[in-house]
């Protein structure tokens, strides 16, 4: 199968006075699984609709492979698409739904039959060809929609919040399946979601979007571990944000914790905040390394979550923070009111831009 990359070059899309995409730049490598993650109104769906050909652009250029698709109608783009509501044709059987794109491409007879069967087998619905869409469960419809989107082996597959309508368990199962399909098919996938868990699980890279722009594009791990802005740090997972100021010499002082640390880079503290994930903060004893920042705190709230416990605490400086403990062997539950010595490794603190 031919695989194509995708390029957005300075794409701006305006709806009247509203700017849906603002000087949007992004290159997606052939075969990459790229997720557009953001709240509603961030432009992720607009970007997808532009790729599918449902929306034009005001400025810039969009390429699939080497070809500019700006003036191509949807049917000429040869991209597969899975819709949030599945959009199966209710008047056609499962088989005919999957055959739909093939018939439009002039496939007939045995070839068509083989391809449709293959696609239905891939999604474990080989026996369901004669059913009508309304006789299927949500998960099954989802799979038919997927089979229909990939049966003609498009080089690019677009998925618009495809798991949004499924319950949690099914969603997790489908995530694994989508990952498997991606490995099997090798096509480039653009996946739109507002669910950060989904984004982290599935993607090679995640583009976090905000107000029609990309806030950060990176691997899932880097997005989580190395957020570049306050917005990204808060949008993905939970985090503690501590204000920092330029201290003595090259150091930064953290007022909330009543402590100092060596500067992590040369950019200075101005306009930046320190982000520390709750699971990076732990109780510390005497023997901890000198790369640890430590401070006193008092537990105010205990949220029991089975495999881990989430604590709300207040530092001696009065700043609220959240930390998390895994309930490994012999771990003792803290009580509200307990005074603790907490800390985190310097390496786990990330200075982020105040945006």
């Amino acid at each position, binding site marked *: 199968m031919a695989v194509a990359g995708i390029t957005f070059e300075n794409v701006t899309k305006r709806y009247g006075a509203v700017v849906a995409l603002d000087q949007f730049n992004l290159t997606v490598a052939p075969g990459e699984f790229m997720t557009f993650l953001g709240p509603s109104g961030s432009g992720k769906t607009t970007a997808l609709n532009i790729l599918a050909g449902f929306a034009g652009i005001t400025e810039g250029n969009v390429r699939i492979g080497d070809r500019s698709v700006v003036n191509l*109608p949807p*049917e000429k783009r040869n991209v597969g*698409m899975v*819709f949030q509501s599945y*959009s199966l*044709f209710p008047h*056609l059987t499962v088989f005919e739904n999957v055959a739909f794109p093939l018939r*439009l491409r002039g496939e007939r007879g045995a070839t068509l039959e083989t391809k449709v069967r293959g696609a239905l087998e891939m999604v474990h619905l080989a026996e369901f060809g004669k059913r009508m869409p309304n006789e299927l469960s949500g998960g099954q419809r989802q799979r038919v929609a997927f089979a229909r989107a990939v049966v*003609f082996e498009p080089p690019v597959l677009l998925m618009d919040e495809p798991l949004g309508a499924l319950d949690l368990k099914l969603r997790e199962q489908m995530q694994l399946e989508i990952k498997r399909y991606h490995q099997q098919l090798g096509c480039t996938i653009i996946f739109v979601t507002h669910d950060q868990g989904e984004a982290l699980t599935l993607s090679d890279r995640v583009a976090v979007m905000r107000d029609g722009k990309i806030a950060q594009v990176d691997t899932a791990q880097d997005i989580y571990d190395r957020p570049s802005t306050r917005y990204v740090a808060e949008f993905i997972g939970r985090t503690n944000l501590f204000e920092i100021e330029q201290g003595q010499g090259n150091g930064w002082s953290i007022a909330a914790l009543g402590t100092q640390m060596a500067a992590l880079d040369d950019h200075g503290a101005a306009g930046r905040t320190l982000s520390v994930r709750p699971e990076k903060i732990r109780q510390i004893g005497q023997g901890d390394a000198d790369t640890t920042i430590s401070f006193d705190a008092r537990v105010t709230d205990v949220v029991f979550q089975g495999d881990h416990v989430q604590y709300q605490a207040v530092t001696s400086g009065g700043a609220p923070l959240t930390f998390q403990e895994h309930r490994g062997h012999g771990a003792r539950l803290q009580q509200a009111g307990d005074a603790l010595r907490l800390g985190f490794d310097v390496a786990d603190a990330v200075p982020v831009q105040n945006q």
Partner: protein
Amino acid sequence: MKRLSLIWLLLPAALLLAAFIVMPTFDLIRASIFDPEFTLKHFQRLVERGVYVDVMWRTVRVSLIVAVICTIVGYPVAMFINLQPKKRQVALLFLILIPMWMSVLIRTFAWIVVLGREGLINDLMIGLGLADGPVQMLYTSGTVITAMVQIMLPIQIITCYSAMTEIDLDLMRAARVLGARRWQALTRVYLPLSYDGTLTGLVIVFMMSMGFFITPALLGGRQDMMIANLIEFQVQHLNWSFAAAIGIVLLVLTVAMILLLRWTGRFAFRRLLNVGR
């Protein structure tokens, strides 16, 4: 238990039907075959006389033509409305419904004003020098059909439209991105999904046209007489039994044609689904 108590909800309707539809229908059947002894002579007369057969076929033909024109004209209008923003849809539907506030009689008279010898169109054509004298438009078959279409069109538009509102327009996008051109998305998705409603509209228009009386009476000539006009004529001449027989035939003919239309419709639908296979 529950079902038993729910059935009482239908009681008023059942009483109404029994008193004003079922009983009179049986009375009509009785009147058509007892005169005063049992006889089939009225039906025989109806079938044997060419004039009457002509009237029956004309009624079926005119009704079919009206239903088909209403469908061809109404379907695109309904589609147009359905593809507008929601607010505009409401306004457009309102415009479509306005003519239905007026009785058929008034709308038919309006056509006389428009098409008469000294009507609007003739005045205009003579004034512009397009015609030397008044053109005969009233009392022709074309006028009857035109007026009937005008009267029935809103019904077909509304029926089509309500079927179309059920269509998820994302399906059209899905079709496009899967490789369908505009017209292919139309013929393979939109048309099949609005087919049932359109066929229902066609049948309703046909059914109502079969019983049209005022419009052919006022706008048509002798050659445009339809079954309802024939019944009226016979009643005027106090041929009650013959009129009853014609009424029965009208009923049977209408039901038979509806069945035929639905059957043909379903057959055509399967052909439509096979387009491109």
